[in-house]
């Protein structure tokens, strides 16, 4: 989640998000260099004494400032395309979690082992404890084992929603009548937050997503406890 001191993206909890962060940093560095160059050129226009009224053309410099941006774009495009295909890699998930977006809560189903279903509502501001994060905490979190590939199948019951957790680099639309699938792996324990990312009505800002990443043993006992409810 975003905290104080977070200027850009939060720290990643998944290898793919790490790669996204690196690509972002790489592209941003290139952009920064271009901006500094252009800023310097514009500033020097104010203070230099060059003038030449009969300028008509300069073929060499035209060649340079046409070829050079193409080269820069290649430096951005190659890592970007690599990551694009990496994100679509096929893998073998261990656990499948299904989520259905409703107006205005998420419901989750674990049907691999036992028939576990539950709803996840935001904790309202008047029922919050001191330590709860406003608009982010929910009553029932999704638990997943870490270092395991997780498959997420997302759909909606009524209108479009979008299921996302920024620290995992995951955002996937929940479309009614359609099953969208995404796969990810968490490489550290913790609690990760996200918020519905497709306008879905009055309480679109008040249906967050909270995922708790726990050890496989804890996950098994959690499944056992939930299946008895």
């Amino acid at each position, binding site marked *: *989640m975003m*905290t104080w*001191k977070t200027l850009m993206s939060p*720290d*990643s909890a998944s290898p793919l998000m790490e790669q996204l962060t690196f690509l972002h940093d790489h592209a941003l560095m290139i952009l920064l260099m271009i901006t500094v160059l252009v800023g310097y050129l514009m500033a020097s226009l104010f203070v230099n004494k060059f003038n030449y009224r009969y300028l008509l053309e300069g073929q060499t410099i035209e060649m340079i400032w046409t070829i050079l941006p193409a080269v820069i774009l290649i430096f951005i495009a190659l890592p970007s395309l690599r990551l694009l295909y990496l994100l679509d890699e096929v893998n073998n998930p261990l656990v499948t979690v299904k989520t259905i977006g409703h107006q205005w809560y998420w419901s989750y189903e674990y049907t691999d082992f036992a028939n576990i279903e539950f709803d996840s509502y935001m904790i309202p*501001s008047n029922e*919050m404890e001191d*330590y709860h994060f*406003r608009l982010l905490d929910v009553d029932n979190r999704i638990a997943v084992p870490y270092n395991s590939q997780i498959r997420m199948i997302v759909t909606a019951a009524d209108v479009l929603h979008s299921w996302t957790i920024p620290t995992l680099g995951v955002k996937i639309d929940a479309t009614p009548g359609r099953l969208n699938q995404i796969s990810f792996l968490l490489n550290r324990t*913790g609690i990760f937050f996200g918020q519905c990312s497709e306008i879905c009505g009055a309480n679109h800002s008040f249906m967050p997503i909270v995922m708790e990443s726990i050890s496989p043993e804890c996950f098994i006992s959690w499944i056992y406890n939930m299946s008895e409810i």
Partner: protein
Amino acid sequence: MAGRLLALSARSIKARPVPLGAAGAHSNPALDATRAMIGNREIVGYGMNGQPHYYDRSDIPLPAIRWKEATADIKCLREKEKGDWRQLSMEEKKALYRASFKLTYSEFKAPTGEWKQIVGASLMLVSVALWFYMAVRVVTRVPLPDSFSEEKQQAQLRRILDLHVNPITGLSSQWDYEKDDWKK
């Protein structure tokens, strides 16, 4: 200034540039119009665009017409100018210059301080905009939610650190878990 340029260009479109100074060509309406505009001043060259206008510019130095009409004194000096220039005194040189030109280079290139007016006016307008913004913010102020109180923010921060949120380069990376305090 834009209006003045427009009027000038309209005048030059109307009065076609004809070679002036042709002897006895007073039946020429274009010549009459030009003489009405510049009086008796001598036309001495092409200038900026062939039009008989006076200007002071450093990048196109020689204007098309003299600044002042020729008087008898000046005509005398012009004859003397055709000889050795070392015979001219400083006042005579200055008189000849001022007859042909309105300002010297240092006079017309001198800073006008116009930038101060422009910057001042712009800053005043920006401050008016800022006052409007502040007024809107004051009028539409709503109280902050409960979770912004000091104790609740402390409780939330404690929970953020306990959860190791952003442990790599973010907030929790600045917390020393052994000493239970911020890293020094």
